[in-house]
């Protein structure tokens, strides 16, 4: 699903965020991406959804060489990848329903299909009763679950999460991780960047460790 081939990323100013990364993630695999702050976890994820471009090397997602894709191809790639952020990236002036529906609206689904899928995604994260509420009215954990619902509503093949439990207490974190695990069990490739080593150990999936921009495990 994901393949990094000798990928380096150097930011303007000379800081090398990633150097010589070789990495492969099989279809329907689940992996945790760990390492200190600044080890390059976020950069690695940004390369997958083309928020950044590699300085060297090649990134493949679902067989497509991202180097060969232009600006116009970015939306297509992103529609097939669900992304969950630590800060949720929700739109606070829209209801939970509208937030989750956003990827489908963008992809041009008809409203009946949108309704069906949004409700399915919300029920999957246990928020079916909150669709009319605004994100402000929700707790941190609920907001994060809305973010997850939005990430999976388009039925992506790949789910990326950048510190999805960063602000949550251990119990909630566990819940969120279980949710990711469930998606993985039905065939979604999942990669989660996290600090939470205890949780990683408990979940027992593959661990990818970055240190100072290099792959160490």
């Amino acid at each position: 699903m994901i393949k990094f081939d000798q990928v380096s990323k150097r930011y303007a100013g000379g800081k090398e965020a990633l150097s010589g990364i070789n990495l492969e993630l099989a279809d329907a695999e689940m992996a945790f991406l760990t390492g200190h702050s600044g080890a390059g976890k976020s950069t690695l994820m940004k390369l997958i959804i083309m928020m950044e471009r590699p300085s060297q090397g090649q990134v493949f997602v679902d067989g497509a060489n991202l180097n060969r894709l232009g600006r116009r191809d970015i939306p297509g790639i992103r529609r097939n990848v669900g992304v969950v952020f630590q800060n949720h990236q929700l739109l606070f002036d829209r209801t939970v329903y509208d937030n989750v529906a956003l990827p489908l609206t963008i992809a041009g689904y008809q409203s009946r299909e949108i309704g069906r899928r949004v409700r399915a995604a919300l029920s999957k994260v246990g928020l079916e009763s909150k669709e009319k509420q605004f994100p402000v009215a929700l707790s941190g954990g609920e907001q994060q679950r809305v973010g997850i619902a939005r990430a999976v509503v388009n039925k992506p093949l790949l789910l990326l999460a950048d510190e999805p439990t960063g602000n949550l207490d251990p119990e909630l974190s566990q819940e969120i991780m279980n949710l990711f695990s469930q998606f993985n069990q039905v065939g979604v490739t999942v990669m989660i960047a996290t600090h939470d080593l205890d949780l990683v150990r408990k979940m027992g999936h593959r661990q990818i460790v970055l240190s100072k921009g290099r792959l160490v495990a």
Partner: protein
Amino acid sequence: MSGATNRTTPPRTVTRPRPKSTGASAHSLGMLGKMGAYLKHHRQVGFETLRNLFSTLLTSLMTWMVIGIALALPAMLYILLTNLGNLGGEWDGKPRLSLYLKAGTSEKAGIALSENLFSDPDVAMASYITSDSALAEFQKNSGFEDVLASLPNNPLPAVIEIELEALSPAETKLKVTQVESWPEVESISVDLEWIERLFVILALGERFVMALSMFLGLGVLLSIGNTIRLAIENRRAEIEVVKLVGGTDGFVRRPFLYLGFWYGLGGAVGAWLMVQASLLFLSEPIERLLLSYQEEFTLIGLGASETAVLLGIGCILGVLGAALAVGRHLHRIEPQ
């Protein structure tokens, strides 16, 4: 992981293996359905943008007013020009002369003179106006009845008004000098010159209106562009999220283009209202003024086609201004 086996029996909510494609959700979306959804989205965005404008009515009204004033000014000047053109247009290319006869010329001599003139093939029309009827008419139209009545005798001369056949300016001049030399003629006034001047002035005015319109149009463009820039800035977070979940540039651009469209259209409607209100306010005194020059005149406002042009220009400027702002600012906003 056991994912590979699981993928063969996917449950309802999550994923199934798809053909490899970077295109948008190829499944279950026929071309027709996609087109329908696209048009529906246009409609939705259009209405939503308009609704948002009305929900911040005061701000929107101010923007509409600014644009409206900028559009109303050239529209008013345009109306002024067309009306002046009409005023001159009633002149059919046939020069008119007024021959003021010397005091003491008898009515009989005057009539004979006018008949004599009429027999000239170059003269299309000649009519004799006695000094009494000239006075009566002047009294009626000028509002100076009292002053005129207090005069001991009629100060107005008898006049022969003639209309020449359409002659070249040189021929006209020749005719004028010829007639001027007649002993009964005190002086002669040719209304040719003021018409020629009027047309030159109108041509000048047209250029002026065009130049002014261009500047004001540029102003509208910039003010809409700036308003849209602020709107983009206000919705930065939303733009980032939309781009993050796969929104195309077109999708991101759409609401702003509609916003520009509504600003332009609203501004044009405002301009139309301002123009029509001003005309209502002005028409009565203008018509009265022109009546005193013996002109039957109706002030012509914006007709259907002119209104359509005004609205069209507003919309075009709105969308164009928005497109400029969007082109300049939207690609800078990328998810961080």
